[in-house]
């Protein structure tokens, strides 16, 4: 995190994705630049291409045409995209995707297991982050026993542990009640403000968009509005 300069963390050039099965243009010539420290909300109806855009930015989907640049690196040139994701991207999902029967702390550390050796520093950092977001008392608790709000906070801690250049959040409040949704958004806003983290959040909830500094609308794979 901490992209204080104004050079774009994310840049797309004529980004296009056509799924061969359906011939649908899920992304249609998208040109986008997101500056470091931005909190950007991508809105659009279901099937508009929001999630496809997020997955393409993460290198999980290869574009049919165009380019994606993250922190000045052309994504198509990165051979080991899994390693790139681990180093540069944090994910927050609507369905949390926590590893069942593992503790909160273990789930936060999960993406960063590199060997059979224990990384004490990373573990300490995870404890600090979890404590900061109100999960300090639940470090050893099995994630199966958490409330949905606590699960999402665990997911946020996992996403920011490695100070990623970019945090991608796919409908992070979609499965939360209003109280937990607000709490989650406030945490994201605080991360964005305190650490200058660049956040791209997909949502169709109008209330959620108020937390973002910029809103990009997508319809049928095309950006139709970009407002600050």
């Amino acid at each position, binding site marked *: 995190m901490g992209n204080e300069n104004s050079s774009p963390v994310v840049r797309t050039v004529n980004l296009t994705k056509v799924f061969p099965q359906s011939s649908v243009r899920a992304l249609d010539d998208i040109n986008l630049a997101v500056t470091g420290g931005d909190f950007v909300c991508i809105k659009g109806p279901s099937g508009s291409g929001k999630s496809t855009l997020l*997955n393409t930015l*993460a290198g*999980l*989907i290869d574009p049919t045409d165009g380019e994606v640049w993250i922190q000045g690196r052309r994504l198509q040139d990165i051979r*080991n995209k*899994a*390693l790139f*994701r*681990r*180093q540069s*991207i944090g*994910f927050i999902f609507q369905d949390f*995707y926590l*590893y*069942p*029967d*593992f503790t909160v*702390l*273990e789930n936060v*550390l*999960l*993406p*960063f*297991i590199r*060997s*059979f*050796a*224990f*990384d004490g520093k990373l*573990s300490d950092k995870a404890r600090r982050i979890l404590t900061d977001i109100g999960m300090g008392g639940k470090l050893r608790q099995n994630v199966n026993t958490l409330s949905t709000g606590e699960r999402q906070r665990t997911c946020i801690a*996992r996403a920011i542990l490695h100070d990623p250049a970019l945090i991608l959040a796919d409908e992070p409040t979609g499965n939360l009640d209003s109280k937990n949704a607000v709490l989650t958004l406030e945490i994201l806003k605080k991360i964005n403000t305190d650490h200058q983290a660049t956040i791209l959040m997909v949502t169709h909830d109008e209330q959620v968009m108020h937390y973002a500094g910029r809103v990009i609308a997508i319809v049928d794979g095309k950006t139709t509005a970009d407002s600050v």
Partner: protein
Amino acid sequence: MTFLTFIVKDIARRKIRFALTFLGIAIGVATCVVMLGLSETIRDAFKNAYLKRDIDIVAFQKDQIYIFSSKVDASVSVQLQAFPEVRDATGVLVDFVGYQDHYLPVYGWEFDSPLFKKILITQGRIPEAGKNEVILGDVFAANAREKVGDKLNIKGIDFDIVGVYNSESTFEKSALIVPLEALQALDEKNKNAVMGINITLKDAYRNKGVIDNLVQKMTRRFPELTIQPTDLFIADRAKQSLLGDKLANLVALITLIAVILGLANTMLTSIFEKKKLIGLLLVIGWQTGDLLKVLLAESLFMIISAGLAGTALGIYATDLVFKTMDVTILIPSLGSGFLIKIFLAVFLAGIISAIIPLWVISKLNPIETVKNG
């Protein structure tokens, strides 16, 4: 949190499945240990009884399938001794006597037999020629609680127990040794007979070429005998063991294949079950190599832990098998070499069983898997 924590916790999530797989592998490995252990013990016993005693050539009655049925005139050993290459030609007689509820092998050795130098007298002394004296194998002495100074009745005759010995040969650990003529006198059919003759050559002649030539020369001279170099003799005896080597190997191989398929199936089921979670790991930055490493380690962890338990179970079962045999000829001897071979086979099985699951994982698309499972 390390890969090891992940593996252990991941396995612990499916306790019943792990327990069943563990049990299946352990029983499979135990079966391999028993099957291979029986033939290993028998082969090992012959090796220790002959090769480690510097015996180069063995002579016994022709056309006898089982060595214990062989009868050779004892005077032949004197004639074989006359060959200039021969250092020792010593007759050995083996008979079986009833002891409590089973049969016990009794060896008759010539008083001056070099075989006495190959056993270790742990108590007392060796028997004297012409006397009804017996020495006891240490395993028999311990099990039967017989001791030096007591008398032991062999086929109606009281023998003085004059010593206890330790032998490298499992044939002899649970047996008795008496003077040759004393054993011959116990049964009319053994009069002036030995079971076979063990021949040791002078050092200068102890090479394969000389041994093969001498075997041919001796066979021409004694056509009523089968005369073999010791390694060939041992190989032939191993073939006649209770369960032939080939049968034992075949059963062990089939069992090992069943273990591999069982483990591969368990791992595949586990992968399909948690496909969504595997997809998640790939999305959040695990590399396919990380997953393969974990899966391989999980497979090896499971098969090695179950393999160790199976080996222990197999050793215990082998011991039981030998204990239930009516004739206490052998006690199991599963050496470190044998156990290392079993461990390597189990290790290899772990790797092979992970191949198909590894291939399935390597083909997974992260986003499709996390979405659709």
